[in-house]
């Protein structure tokens, strides 16, 4: 695995002004993002922000109403050439309840040209998952692990996961995530994972796409995004637009005495009355979720993460 060569490669996912409407409802609008190969990308945002819509477009399960979507430079479609490289795990873990994990692995072997049955069995055995019992009799955590094992058996280049860990207990979540990260360490795999569990995302993800009100508000490498934002605390005052012309105000909170800002910008804040601190991922995400896509955020979006 070589990070430098990966970063030069064509992005795993790239969208340009991607839009999806269902009748009069706009589910996704003007979505321009890129996800570099080899990254684990967190897809976050309020419920109904368009996360599942985006994942389905990437998987080729629905077609754009406007704009463009490319996965490894190719348009997603329900044809074998595309689907060999892409795995999709829907929220409502799709397994046949009366079939065992071993049965599922047999079926997968018939349906897929590339199928690492041994690897999948090893992974599930490591987690002590009974391979011969109907998956309907397994716990929710075990079922999720079986589903991930099946998705990985395909050895996809892109794996799309729609809130896979939401219903799992902490230990099952940890096992699920270590199975995932081990796969990413094992071959050239890119992952896009939607979740509300920011603590988990902070551990495993190195890239972030934040959707709010059907639009992307943030897209970039998590390190770069964190470095580009600060939290300022100071005595209460009115701040409009920016601080010192260099730091755009993303979010502001006031108490009778104090003002707290989340700002975006390079370089130092000069006014010594501001207490400057680093931002946490959760704070950053909440600050952007709180706003409903003011004009201009789309422009800033492209400045972070070293992408087009």
């Amino acid at each position: 695995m070589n990070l430098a060569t990966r970063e030069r490669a064509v992005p795993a996912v790239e969208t340009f002004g991607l839009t999806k409407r269902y009748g009069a409802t706009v589910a996704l609008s003007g979505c321009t993002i890129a996800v570099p190969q080899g990254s684990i990308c967190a897809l976050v945002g309020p419920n109904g922000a368009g996360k599942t819509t985006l994942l389905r477009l990437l998987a080729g399960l629905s077609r754009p109403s406007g704009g463009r979507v490319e996965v490894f430079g190719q348009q997603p479609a329900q044809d074998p050439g595309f689907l060999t490289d892409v795995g999709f795990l829907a929220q409502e873990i799709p397994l046949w309840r009366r079939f065992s994990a071993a049965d599922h692995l047999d079926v997968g072997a018939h349906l897929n040209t590339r199928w690492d049955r041994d690897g999948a069995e090893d992974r599930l055995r490591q987690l002590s998952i009974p391979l011969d019992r109907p998956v309907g009799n397994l716990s929710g955590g075990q079922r999720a692990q079986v589903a991930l094992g099946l998705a990985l058996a395909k050895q996809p280049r892109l794996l799309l996961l729609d809130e896979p860990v939401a219903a799992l207990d902490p230990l099952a979540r940890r096992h699920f995530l270590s199975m995932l990260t081990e796969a990413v360490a094992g071959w050239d795999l890119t992952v896009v994972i939607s979740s509300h569990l920011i603590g988990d995302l902070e551990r495993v993800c190195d890239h972030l796409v934040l959707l709010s009100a059907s639009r992307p508000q943030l897209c970039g490498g998590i390190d770069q995004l964190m470095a580009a934002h600060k939290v300022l605390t100071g005595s209460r005052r009115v701040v409009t637009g920016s601080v010192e012309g260099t730091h755009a105000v993303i979010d502001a909170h006031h108490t009778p005495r104090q003002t707290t800002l989340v700002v975006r910008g390079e370089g130092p804040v000069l006014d010594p009355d501001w207490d400057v601190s680093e931002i946490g991922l959760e704070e950053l995400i909440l600050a952007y979720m709180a706003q409903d896509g003011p004009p201009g955020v789309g422009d800033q979006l492209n400045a972070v993460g070293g992408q087009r």
Partner: protein
Amino acid sequence: MISFRIDSHSGVPPYLQVVQQVRQALRVGVLQVGDQLPTVREVVAAVAINPNTVLKAYRDLEREGLVEGRPGQGTFVKGLPPGPPPQTHTGLARSLSRWVASARQAGLDDEAIEALVHSTLRETRGAGVA
């Protein structure tokens, strides 16, 4: 071989936690020159963090001259971090615990002691630079 602990809520980025834990293991002698670090795959399987995080940490350690990557073999300890030997730490730890005891006796709680340590570190750092 050492294992890592990653605390998601510490506020310290995971890659830095890996770097610090390797440095600490070298300082106290848990790791010695020639020892192998766990592979990226072993680390992520054990603690479920991003593989690129481990790579970044190992690259940082390599840049510091503490480890070296041997193609096809893994990452091995090459040198020790600068600084005094472990005995010095032991001596300083003794005098520090005497100081902490007197601070407690004076009525400072842990939070006040930490705040005092941090502000002292900050001030003396400033004095050193100026």
